[in-house]
């Protein structure tokens, strides 16, 4: 037990948390943008998966940043398809989302088997690249805190820094620009922006595209940094956990950041625990993030209801 304690409070564990949180954080931000515009994006899972495969396949032939951009575009494309069917064809957006998930689950395995010549499990035979880590070891030169800063700040993926920037950018966009106000207005009460001449469906379409793009980058981080290479169903529910993180974060960028870090921390715990407890069942450890998501969702809902009741009482 003490061993677990020391592991959790080590710098290496912090780095693991950042690594596991980054894909979650990116798709949580994507989910947040879509959710605030009133278009619940349940296809985050499929978008991440597609982004991951696209990034891996492109990285075989192109530099890593082209691959990440390709993963991003693939996600955005799925967002646009979703918007087309949900708004133009007036299908229920949740059903459309699940159709996208089914498309991604089947389509990625199909494409993988084509690309690898029959392997339906992994892309291990493809020479795919990784996203580089940012080396900040020059920070060691700073007296006293230098080595500590290096150990916690150095070695993160470029995309982790990008994700941190995205949190700020989304917050700035939502609360400091007129378009952010449009987006929130469209999500809050569509009839009013409609009357004011704001193109409601265009706003929602664009937010779904952005949502898909962010989830696609999340997938790229998963398949080009956390693991190098694509494996079948490798997102393993992260898109749905991200959806939970949006709700848990009270639909605010900073809250979503905290929720994504929380889930990332439990995933990191699930990563390090098998090394510490030899006899701990790996399956049950893998289930920890899901259990935490449900419990967090329920606890948060209790709090939200209490807040609502208090507001009603005033």
């Amino acid at each position, binding site marked *: 037990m003490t061993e677990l304690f020391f592991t959790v409070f080590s710098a290496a564990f912090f780095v693991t948390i950042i690594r596991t949180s980054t894909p979650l954080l990116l798709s949580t931000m994507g989910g947040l943008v879509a959710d605030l515009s009133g278009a619940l994006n349940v296809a985050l899972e499929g978008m991440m998966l597609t982004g991951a495969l696209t990034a891996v396949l492109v990285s075989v032939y192109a530099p890593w940043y082209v691959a990440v951009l390709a993963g991003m575009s693939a996600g955005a494309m799925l967002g646009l398809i979703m918007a087309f069917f949900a708004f133009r064809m007036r299908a229920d957006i949740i059903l459309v989302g*699940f159709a996208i998930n089914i498309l991604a689950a089947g389509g990625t395995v199909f494409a993988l088997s084509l690309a690898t010549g029959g392997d339906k499990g992994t892309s291990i035979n493809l020479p795919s690249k990784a996203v580089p880590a940012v080396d900040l070891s020059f920070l060691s030169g700073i007296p006293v805190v230098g080595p500590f800063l290096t150990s916690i700040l150095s070695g993160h993926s470029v995309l982790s820094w990008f994700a941190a920037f995205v949190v700020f950018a989304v917050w700035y966009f939502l609360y400091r620009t007129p378009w952010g106000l449009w987006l929130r207005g469209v999500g809050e009460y569509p009839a009013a922006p409609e009357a004011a001449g704001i193109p409601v469906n265009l706003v929602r379409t664009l937010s779904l595209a952005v949502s898909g793009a962010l989830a696609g980058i999340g997938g790229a981080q998963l398949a080009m940094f956390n693991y190098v290479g694509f494996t079948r169903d490798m997102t393993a529910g992260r898109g749905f956990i991200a959806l939970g993180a949006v709700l848990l974060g009270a639909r605010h960028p900073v809250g979503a950041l905290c929720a994504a870090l929380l889930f990332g921390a439990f995933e990191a715990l699930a990563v390090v625990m098998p090394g510490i407890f030899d006899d701990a069942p790996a399956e049950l450890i893998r289930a920890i993030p899901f259990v935490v998501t449900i419990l967090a969702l329920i606890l948060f809902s209790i709090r939200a209801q209490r807040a609502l009741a208090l507001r009603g009482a005033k």
Partner: protein
Amino acid sequence: MSNVPTIDRASRWKAIRTEVGRAVGALAIALAVAFVVVLLTSKSPFEALNVLLTQIPARPRTIGLWLDDVAKLTITGLAFSLVFQARQFSMGVQGQVYVGGLAATWVALSPLGTTWAAIPLGMAAAMLAGAIWGFIPGIAKAKLGANEIVSSLMLNYIAIELCNYLVRAVLPKPQAGVLTTNDFPDTAVIPQLIKFDGLNITRLDYGFVFAIVAVIVVWFALYRTSWGLKLRLVGHNPRFAEYSGIKSTFIMVSAMTAAGALGGLLGSMFVQGQGYGKLTVLFEGNLAFEGILVAIVARSRPLAVPVVALFYGYLRQGAQLMNIRTDVPAEVIGVVTAIIILLVSSSFSINFIKRLFRRHAAPAATATVPAGSAAK
């Protein structure tokens, strides 16, 4: 709408014709897209298509596999129909199948497994476990407002990992290292439906009968009981239902619990069926989730569910054969599934292209028409 019954009946037939036309059109488009994909990627595209569409009736064995899938797709389609009719998006059938399978296994491998009670008790235990698994997201939504999509999906993953763990480490198994339990005693395995020497429909068992019974029970519950009326009312217009004194939270929770019991039943049909007769990891092969497609195409109508399951089961089994006999992976069927869901759940109809280019974007207020009422 109308108080003249004849007009009502005529409009119903018209609605059925529209729906069937929509489904057939969607199927045709989806198959055409899949064929183009196969054409571009396969060395022998026509053979692949031939295997997909014509090879099932060739052998009794594949017919048995097909009908067995139809029974299972019917049950999961019914479970999804129940929650969709109440307009809940509980996606937990998969998890319910796993806990149901675990409960049935527990009965089958206990001393009770060797008695006549093994099958009924196994099914009852499975339904109970599934109902509990369906009740959790229901109560969390009704009492606390926790999003049922997220919680039911999380419960799916938890159930899968639980099943993996129990099979690997706890339940008795024939030899170390295999990921299956011991075979159930014969008394705990649902008997074959047709035992005929020349006709080797091995997989088809009495689960098929259970599926038919389930269709009738769900239809009766939805359309001939006050619970069903309330459920459909809550699904149609929750505020109106609340104003007319219906406890919509109770209806919501009971719909999800009943759907959970169906999911659990499916679990016992899997592990106690002729296909397995034991518990293995990942035994349902993603079939449970495909109930979404069945429910959507059937417009959540219990009587239409088996018809859709018949067609979809055919495609699904055809894809498996195609996977084995040609160079086209079975996963291509995912593309077909997705396109069918997209087209059927949208306001697509035969002449949709014409309308698409004539009419401009619909106003936002009508943009989120519920799936069930999208028919024009």
